């Protein structure tokens, strides 16, 4: 029983990180009009930047956090002009290929230049690995609590932005129909830039939680995360923000349980098996797609 609780907590923490990533992913998909396959790679790059700053400043957590968020926003905004001509043409599949190319470039830079390609690890103080609450073999660490609380907080903040602010209304309008949005006088480019910025901001926050939860990063992490995030988004329905959250939690649970109880290396197969089945049975995703 205690083991089950321990696995559940692990799974929820993992799922909450995926949920944050999916929010950013769907935002870029709906408002940016592109398929942001390279989003997870930008998140991992932010983790690297955070690590560099921590190394230089001697583990100053505040500066590290700021570095992660700033680099998330910066890298996201850098990719905006690359995707702009594609978004204008409505070439979403083309943007997928371009995003794959960008991910290739980022992975290569990470494996050759950053820290010589060796795995980077984050200091213990950031990870919050001490058990805060423990009952038997089930423990909850400060890191896990921070992750879950932070994800919930960011999620709530984001939905507040989406439903209670003007820019959020602009996002939703663009998501429904960018043509009508233009007719209504919504500045497409500015809104798009803002969406990239917010997605980058969410990415920066996710990178800190990832650093807490995983504690290491390597060049292969980008690809792993990208495929899982894509799988979750597909599972829930592309562009469906609320459904994405639930799907992320489900994937986190499934992966955690598979890792705990199934032999061999079946965790990826589970995630992708789910995708294939959902896509074949309900191509618009379980909760319906907005895009």
């Amino acid at each position, binding site marked *: 029983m205690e083991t089950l609780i321990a696995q559940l907590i692990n799974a929820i923490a993992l799922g909450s990180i995926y949920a944050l990533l999916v929010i950013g992913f769907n935002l870029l998909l709906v408002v940016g009009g592109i398929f942001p396959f390279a989003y997870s790679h930008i998140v991992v790059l932010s983790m690297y930047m955070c690590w560099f700053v921590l190394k230089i400043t001697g583990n100053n957590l505040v500066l590290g956090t700021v570095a992660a968020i700033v680099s998330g926003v910066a890298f996201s905004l850098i990719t905006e002009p690359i995707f702009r001509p594609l978004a204008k043409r409505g070439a979403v599949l083309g943007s997928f290929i371009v995003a794959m190319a*960008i991910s290739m470039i980022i*992975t290569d830079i990470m494996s050759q230049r950053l820290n010589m390609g060796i795995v980077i690890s984050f200091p213990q103080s950031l990870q919050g690995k001490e058990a805060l609450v423990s009952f038997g073999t089930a423990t909850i660490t400060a890191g896990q609590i921070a992750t879950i609380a932070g994800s919930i907080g960011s999620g709530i903040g984001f939905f507040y932005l989406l439903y209670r602010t003007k820019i959020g209304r602009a996002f939703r309008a663009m998501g429904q129909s960018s043509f009508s949005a233009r007719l209504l006088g919504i500045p497409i480019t500015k809104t798009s830039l803002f969406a990239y910025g917010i997605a980058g901001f969410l990415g920066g926050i996710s990178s800190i939680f990832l650093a807490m939860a995983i504690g290491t990063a390597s060049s292969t992490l980008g690809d792993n995360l990208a495929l899982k995030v894509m799988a979750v988004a597909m599972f829930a329905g592309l562009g469906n923000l609320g459904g994405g959250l639930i799907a992320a939690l489900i994937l986190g649970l499934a992966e955690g349980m598979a890792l705990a109880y199934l032999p061999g290396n079946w965790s990826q*197969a589970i995630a992708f098996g789910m995708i294939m089945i959902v*896509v*074949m*049975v309900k191509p618009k995703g379980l909760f319906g797609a907005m895009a």
Partner: protein
Amino acid sequence: MSLSIYYFLQLCAIFIMLGWCLYLVYRIGQLNNAPIAIMAIGAYLSSYAVLHWGWPFLLALVFAVVCGAVFSLIPALGLGRAPSFAMVIATIALIFIMQTIFRNLPWFGGALGLFGIPKVKNLLLVTYIFLVAIGILIYRFDHSRFGRAAEMIFIDRDIASTLGINIYMYSVILQVSTGAIGALAGVLYAFTIRTIIPSYFGFSFLLAITCFIFVGGYTTMWGVIFFTPILWGIPLILPQSMAVFRNLIYGFSLMVILLIRPEGVIDKNMLRFIRLKSGVVFKKLFGRSQKTVDKRLKEVM
């Protein structure tokens, strides 16, 4: 024949076949990555048949191709009607599922895969016979009413269906044929390299093939033919100091081409241009000169 030329030609042929697989289904606007997964099936099944059942090469080849076609029917039936994204992601998922299956099944050697695959005589000849045959088939497809129907589907699905084109049938048939070609490419790959590991048929290979076809041009079959040897061969002849940039070259060329010239380097206009100019050159070299034509006319008159 020098060893490196042999392997260069052999591997280029295999990659061209795979590029054509992606090209064929993209003719109707769907990016189907399943051929890479089916390639794994083809490679493993044929090697297993030859190594453990002692089958001759051609029998194993036919067996693997048939199995590949049958296996590709399963996702094809489900994905025929899927929106384009669903197909891309589902087929990427299929690649990973195949990798996991082959890595975990004990009969296929686990993570180390199969090795010691015997040599096949005249493999280069066999490969190029298949390459030319498939090329001719694709050419005939492109220039037939099926090719025109496919182009119509690419341009606008709704209009195509009003014209009576059954998109689902096209999708399924194309996916199954590319499954067969993919399995064939897998068999040839297995007998060229003579050792197969599950991690080879994965995401980075998919990225490389995607690069070849999108830089070359996805509207015609010639883009793949010209650009596969260039993109595969140039990193091999780069000086030592530049060899480290191989993946960056792939990524940047893909990005740049998609932004500047989205249809790829070789598109229909370029083909028309080449045909025109080569017609002029051919005429100059082998055609009758104006003097001869005048003389003949005079004789007749």
